[in-house]
């Protein structure tokens, strides 16, 4: 199970079991839903902004451990971030998963997301990790 423990690191399993900022948000300034047509997974993201920065970010999801953990970590990481900073973080995350040996330099910023680096070995699961990020960033104007 060694490859598996690389994929399902304790941090991931923890976020999956006890996701942070889980649940709908009342009085949101934006909301987005995205699904993965391949597997039917669905994520909804709700956010409030103040001065163009995220002041509250929550999600609900029907999805796998990877997408739930990714969403949970995202809600923590993007707190207080601007759109531009959020996009930059997502780009760093994409580099981490899509490029060989990617994103070592971004380690500090990526925080718990680094625990998702094992997903790189599972190309069909990368979509799961990106789902909540794409939901937010495609809709947040």
């Amino acid at each position: 199970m060694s490859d598996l423990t690389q994929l399902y690191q304790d941090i991931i399993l923890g976020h999956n079991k006890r996701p942070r900022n889980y649940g709908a948000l009342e009085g949101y300034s934006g909301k987005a839903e995205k699904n993965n047509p391949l597997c039917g997974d669905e994520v909804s993201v709700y956010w409030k902004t103040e001065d163009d920065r995220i002041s509250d970010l929550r999600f609900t999801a029907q999805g796998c451990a990877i997408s739930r953990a990714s969403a949970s970590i995202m809600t923590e990481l993007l707190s207080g971030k601007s759109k531009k900073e959020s996009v930059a973080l997502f780009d760093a995350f994409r580099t981490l998963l899509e490029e060989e040996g990617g994103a070592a330099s971004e380690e500090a910023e990526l925080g718990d997301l680094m625990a998702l680096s094992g997903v790189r070995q599972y190309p069909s699961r990368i979509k799961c990790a990106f789902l909540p990020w794409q939901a937010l960033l495609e809709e947040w104007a």
Partner: protein
Amino acid sequence: MSFDVTKIREEFPILATQVGKKPLVYLDNAATTQKPQEVIDVLDSYYSETNANIHRGVHHLAEKATEAYEQSRREVAQFIHAATEDEVIFVRGTTEGINLIANTFGNKFIEAGDEIIISTMEHHANIVPWQLFCEARGAVLKVIPVSDAGELEMDSYESLLSERTKLVSVVHASNSLGIINPVKSIIEKAHGVGAKVLLDGAQAVGHFPVDVQELDCDFYVFSGHKLFSATGIGVVYGKYDLLDSMPPYQGGGDMISRVSFEGTTYKAPPGRFEAGTPHISGAIALAASIRYLEKQDRAALLDYEHELLEYATESLSEIEGLKIIGTAAKKVSLVSFTMEGTHPHDVATVLDADGIAVRAGHHCTQPLLQRFGVPATARASFAFYNTREEIDKLAQALTKIQVLFA
């Protein structure tokens, strides 16, 4: 057991594959089946010894290829007990077959206000073509509901039937839950109101013998790749008089009798529905997989698959937090399940690490899974080359999941 599973496994070369350091345990047969060496050899020898275009050459190879292609049609006709080989149309697969029927039979015989009945348990291939058709034509789509055990609710079906019903299109065996539908009674009742019946046999033909005349269905469709043969080849069966009353599907070469700018006339079935160069090698490989199957004691294969199903159902039921969806008695050999606290995707990934291939997702049956209130299931689907030992490995790996995600 009157057949030898070890010997059978040797006939399917891919089954000797290693995944990482683990032997492949292939339990995704409902998605596609593996191919016996005989079928692989036929594909190979077609291209090295026979290849030519069909129905349009007088040279040696053209005649040889045409004969092989038409011989395949005869073998398919015998396999499903069609009255004549002219009732067998080669298409790309089940999906194209259903679209063909919507675009030919549908366009000619189904009008605004007419009704088409499908069921909740259909594959998207037997939903979306009818939605598109109804949208374009103003016809109405009605849906037979499914019980908690996964069976069609026959009383509701009867109450949906009326003179407005022009077509009933249902799956013979469900790819998602494995349920085998009471198609004979469905057909009788539909015929009672003058409606035609299409059966989606994608998951049926690979498991049990099908006799289209005995069933009295009007159309039957299936895919070669789920019948131990090539991808890209499938079959539409239609009763001859019905096919003969239908307009062409696609226009092109090979489907015409005579072309002129004053007016073009079309071939009789099945040629009318096969425009262009078909998947010749695929049709020939399909006949090869049929020959392979017919050589076996099919009753013994079916018994064996049924034993696997019972064994898997028992072993999996013992796993804590595991819930089997689709518990009706009459099933083809597959088990669809969910695990408390673990998403099916994660289940499939963990199993893959042990070399076990299962499918996780909605299996192209989203309305059905919505009916059961789950977004996805994991599905282990068996063929006669699977073994009890493989099911033991599945059960062991599933038990590990409980620990990992606890």
